[in-house]
């Protein structure tokens, strides 16, 4: 009889078991150290206190409102970045003169950490929603733009030659080669844009805002409320993990035909 060799329960789920073990050990150790009085609540929270604070801010506090505020900032800014980044990137990638014309700007802005522009943006837009939207937009726009430009320009020579041999017009080359060829690049840009946009929204809210998860973290820090600080950090971390995961799935889904996969 042939068939799949038997695998033990551990061998099948090794990654999950070891991963869970490390998290449990860390949280357990943390809680134990706190109980033993090794950690001052002024500098460090405990898992128990974080859970308690989480429940409190969720039910009676402003956590939901803060999350909604932050997600709205992120969604509007990121949506604008995707639309303008892709459209602008396709145009710049396709028209050489346009690219040469905008090159100095794009290089300068791309090389500058966008965080450096936050104070200026807050002067322009105030501490309401639009300053955060604009920061997210600027943060996510450049990786999407740069990757889109690269994707449109990365026209395969052999494919171009084939298209020309079959009398393809410039428009046909654009729609059948340049656009579909740039999709994986655009999705890479979107994945990078998610990460940078999240940084943008948090920093924006920390520097100039009276609401949002970023504000919650900054406020927690200023008032030595480490429990709140940890709740905010965990919300941010999980948002990042979730959004990056979605972007990665999307990227993989559309890169099915890529030879390296």
């Amino acid at each position, binding site marked *: 009889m042939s068939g799949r060799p038997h695998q033990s329960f551990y061998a099948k789920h090794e990654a999950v078991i070891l991963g869970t073990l490390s998290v449990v050990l860390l949280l357990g150790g943390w809680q134990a150290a706190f109980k033993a009085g090794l950690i001052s609540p002024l500098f460090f929270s405990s898992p128990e206190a974080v859970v308690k604070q989480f429940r409190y801010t969720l039910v009676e506090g402003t956590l939901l409102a803060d999350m909604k505020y932050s997600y709205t900032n992120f969604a509007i800014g990121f949506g604008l970045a995707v639309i303008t980044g892709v459209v602008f990137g396709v145009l710049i990638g396709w028209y050489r003169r346009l690219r040469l014309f905008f090159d100095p700007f794009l290089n300068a802005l791309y090389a500058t950490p966008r965080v450096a522009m936050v104070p200026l943006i807050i002067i322009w837009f105030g501490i309401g929603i639009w300053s955060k939207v604009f920061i997210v937009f600027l943060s996510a726009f450049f990786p999407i733009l740069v990757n889109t430009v690269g994707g449109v320009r990365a026209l395969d020579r052999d*494919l171009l030659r084939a298209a020309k041999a079959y009398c393809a017009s410039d428009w046909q080359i654009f729609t059948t080669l340049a656009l579909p060829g740039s999709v994986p690049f655009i999705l890479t840009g979107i994945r990078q844009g998610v990460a940078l946009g999240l940084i943008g929204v948090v920093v924006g809210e920390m520097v100039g805002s009276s609401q949002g998860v970023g504000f919650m973290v900054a406020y927690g820090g200023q008032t030595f409320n480490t429990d709140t600080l940890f709740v905010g950090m965990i919300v941010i971390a999980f948002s990042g993990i979730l959004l990056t995961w979605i972007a990665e799935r999307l990227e993989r889904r559309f890169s099915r*035909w890529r030879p390296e996969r």
Partner: protein
Amino acid sequence: MVKLSIEHLSKRYWFEREDREVLAVNDVSLAVEDGEFLAIVGPSGCGKTTLLNIVAGLLPYEEGSVSIDGKRVSGPGVDRAVVFQHSSLLPWRTIAGNVRYGMEMQRRFDEATMHERADHFVKMVGLNGFEKHFPNELSGGMQQRVNLARALAADPKVLLMDEPFAALDAQTREFMQSELLKIWSQDRKTVLFITHQINEAVYLADRVAVMSARPGRLKGVFKIPFGRPRTLSLKRDPQFLEIEDSIWQLIEEESQSLNMVLAEK
């Protein structure tokens, strides 16, 4: 009747790195009859691919003339289709989508006809059942079948083949050669076939033109006397080997004289 006529064609390149002009094709004249399978052999760098690119309309030329049915070639046209050395398939299109591609670009057929022709030529190259697969799921030999089907589906008057089997392993190559003859025998299009393999040229073609290296000149044209259909065992026929040998001598003579020139320098 002459289908493809090349007269006194020369092509010069400006060779940037060495800052000098190179004569890639030197005064080549060649006439391919309607329905004829003509192969051009020559060592690498003899200008045979340059010649094919000019005939395909992908390279401009200034000296001499190239014409199909008496009409001067001045760019790509629907009367020609190219089978490339690298399969040059769109990785995001399925096999059926790739076979359609040439027809789509040329805009000669309506939707229903394109669908029907794509179906027909996928079957003709033996890929039925693979219509919905993507190129990266296919072997090199199968990808070249798609490349061939794409060209045939575009219904060209002249089929241009640029070393289509050069990147395949020896066994697959032999198999593809006999498959190509089978497919070609169904409608006997005019074929210009470029290769560096002498026995491939002799096995496939009605006539074999031999080119020499730098500057690419036509050294001689051999008429291949074998009837059709041909089988792979023909490659062991004494007469076949004799022809192969005389082509080989013509090319070798050339490379020896080239060595002598180099030695003198």
